[in-house]
């Protein structure tokens, strides 16, 4: 592990983002995500967390600084499930491979594996509108999994879900992380979700978005859902929440 972890998969150096209207969304951001790392960025809404992710994915270009990405296999999970409503679960999961011109047989096999991984077997023929919010998000996850990503970018994917569904998806995401060994960059405004999922939590302050603090999360993977109720967990959540408040003021 140590040898691969030395080279960062994603490397932000002094990144600044200024929008055409003059708004400075990000300023002086240094951030690395290495193999085996799951980094979560927390911050108040409007602090530029999503912009960070959009720059990492190439949807936007930083106005200043360098962004290095050492892979082309990027999974991107949006805030919404962004499923095509006219496609079944199966066809939605196959979409990305289809866009890359993968053969029908290979697409089928990849989709089957991904659908299986997110626990949607049996729902292949359903249209998105027949699914619950949680199941739509699983479909979206499965769709990204077919790319076999080395790095996964998550833009507040579970923000719109209820608490129970969210916790269950967090557990499954951790399981996927352990199994697939991808690197993760996750955006959320929930501190406990951040601590539970990550190996490292980065705290951002708003306007312009800067990184104010970084916390290593000491819990081993795979994690027991019960750690959420330990004092150590609560202590870390408290410290991060405190840093968030400080940064906000």
């Amino acid at each position, binding site marked *: 592990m140590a040898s691969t972890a030395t080279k960062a998969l994603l490397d932000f150096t002094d990144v600044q983002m200024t929008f055409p209207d003059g708004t400075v969304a990000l300023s002086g951001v240094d951030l690395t995500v290495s193999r085996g790392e799951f980094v979560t960025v927390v911050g108040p809404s409007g602090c530029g967390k999503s912009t960070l992710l959009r720059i990492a994915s190439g949807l936007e270009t930083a106005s200043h600084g360098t962004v290095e990405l050492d892979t082309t296999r990027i999974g991107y999970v949006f805030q919404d499930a962004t499923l095509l409503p*006219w496609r079944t679960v199966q066809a939605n999961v196959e979409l990305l491979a289809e866009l890359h011109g993968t053969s029908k047989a290979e697409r089928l096999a990849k989709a089957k594996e991904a659908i299986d991984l997110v626990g949607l077997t049996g729902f292949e023929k359903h249209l998105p509108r027949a699914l619950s919010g949680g199941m739509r998000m699983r479909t979206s996850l499965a769709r990204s999994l077919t790319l076999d990503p080395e790095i996964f970018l998550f833009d507040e994917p579970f923000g719109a879900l209820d608490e129970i569904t969210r916790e269950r998806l967090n557990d499954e995401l951790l399981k996927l992380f352990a199994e697939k060994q991808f690197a993760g960059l996750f955006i959320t405004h929930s501190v406990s979700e951040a601590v539970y999922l990550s190996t490292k939590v980065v705290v951002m302050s708003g306007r312009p978005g800067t990184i104010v603090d970084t916390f290593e999360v000491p819990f081993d993977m795979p994690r027991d859902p019960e750690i959420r109720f330990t004092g150590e967990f609560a202590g870390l959540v408290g410290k991060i929440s405190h840093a968030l408040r400080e940064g906000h003021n």
Partner: protein
Amino acid sequence: MTDDIMPTTTTAPALARPRGARGSRVSLWLPPLVLLALIIGSVYLVNFLLGKRNFLLPQPHVVFQVYFDPKNGPAIFEALLHSAEVALVGLMIAIALGVLWAIAMNSAKWVERTTFPYAVILQSIPILAIMPLIGFWFGYDFAARVIVCVLIALFPMVSNTLFGLQSVDRGHRELFLLQGASAWTILSKLELPAALPAIFAGARISAGLAVVGAIVGDFFFQRGTPGIGALISKYGARLQSPELFASILVASLFGVLIFLFFGWLGRRAVGKWYDFG
């Protein structure tokens, strides 16, 4: 059905039609049928009250008998068929042109900036004002009548398709862009499917307009086989009121039919994932 209930695997298509659709069919058709009966009844009443002037509103059964009258019945249906042909040819051209035009505007901003104002102008030109010009250029036959249909039916296709193509969700677009999808892939796999509900809604409006166009065309361009509009104008001039009513009735029925047909087609095409009205 609440959003978060997990559908069971065995009853997947339960969402296709709400339960009790069959039972509600009676309540769907009965009220308008009752109203129709009332209207027919009052027509008889008014006909009776008009006395000698009852040719203004002929008795419904007299109108109905026209269809079986060997002198006028077949002529009416033949004329209707001819107008239907004009309307359908015009509609197909309007749909094809409208969709292609909208695709062109969607793929290049300058095409939209340059040509969309003319789509709006096209919509604002009083069609009756340019009828003489159309006849003058294209003759007074089939072609001229079709052109009237196209002119009148084009705008809803253009504006609806363009709206549909441009209302694609930003997240969906980015999903495709992240995979480096080409403009053609985005059009064929994302924009066109997403625009289908709007395209079918446009086609339904244009279908009704094409029928209007065909009948207006019949009025002005009477060379060649007469359409139903020509018959309507002839019967009107000769005060043949039962024949006039019989002709108006089939023309209206044709308009309704074509509207229903496109509604049905739209539901067939996108009803599974979109609540097509």
